[in-house]
């Protein structure tokens, strides 16, 4: 084994080691963005080391041109694809946080509204005096009162969304 073969072997093994490290990192890292960060390493440095090994092993100019083509393509495309993937991951993370905040606020308002309806329902059987005349009217009054909870919620959501869209549109148009 000559010296160039030895250097080529070392470069090939280092490139393979880089892909093994990327596999371990993709498996072990806790976050999506850190996984993407680690996954970009064999696509640039590992490919470059492997191409160095192959170029030392087969020395013809056509092969070296093809290897340079692969390395240049990886250098151009790997950061772009990583950037696209990270942007999607970041949007999903922020959307999850917004969804969690919206769910928390909706839960708080529902928790604040539900005791009111429960009190209205408990006050109905709690006042039997005079219920004989108004027994027909009390449930009819109670049903719109019970329906007002979700209806008001829907109206409030619609009112939040309706002024929200003209506010969003100039922000999105800038």
């Amino acid at each position, binding site marked *: *084994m000559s010296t160039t*073969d030895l250097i*080529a*072997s070392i470069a*090939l*093994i280092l*490139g*393979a*080691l880089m*892909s*093994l*490290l*990327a*596999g*371990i990192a*993709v*498996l072990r890292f806790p976050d*999506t963005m850190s*996984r*993407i960060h680690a*996954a970009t390493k*064999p*696509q640039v440095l*590992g*490919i470059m080391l*492997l*191409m160095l*090994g*192959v170029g030392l*092993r*087969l020395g*013809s100019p*056509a*092969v070296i041109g*093809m*290897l340079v*083509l*692969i390395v240049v*393509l*990886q250098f151009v*495309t*790997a950061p*772009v*694809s990583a950037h*696209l*993937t990270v*942007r*999607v*991951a970041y*949007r*999903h993370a922020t*959307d999850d946080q917004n969804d969690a905040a919206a769910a928390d606020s909706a839960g708080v308002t529902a928790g604040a509204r539900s005791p009111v309806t429960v009190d209205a329902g408990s006050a109905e059987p709690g006042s039997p005096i005079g219920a004989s005349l108004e027994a027909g009217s009390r449930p009819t009054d109670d049903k719109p009162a019970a329906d007002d909870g979700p209806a008001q919620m829907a109206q409030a959501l619609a009112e939040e969304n309706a002024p929200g869209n003209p506010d969003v549109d100039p922000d999105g148009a800038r």
Partner: protein
Amino acid sequence: MTLTLLIAGLLFAGGAAFAAVRLVRGPTQIDRAVALDVMLAIVVGVIVLLAAVTDSSVTLVIAVVISLLGFIGSAGLAKLLPRDRR
């Protein structure tokens, strides 16, 4: 060169196995896309390693095509994933 093929092949196999575990287990679709990117880089590495060991430059064209297709696949996944989610 046989020893190089053995060592580098084992390293590639380990990396591909770990990436496959992440591909199966990934919590989101983005993790699976990242694991597929790593496995595609490993495939390119294996093809290049075989070209180096067997002294033949025929399979290097496959490496060029796979590196281009990997970029197209990753960009397409990044474009199509939000509609899948929400």
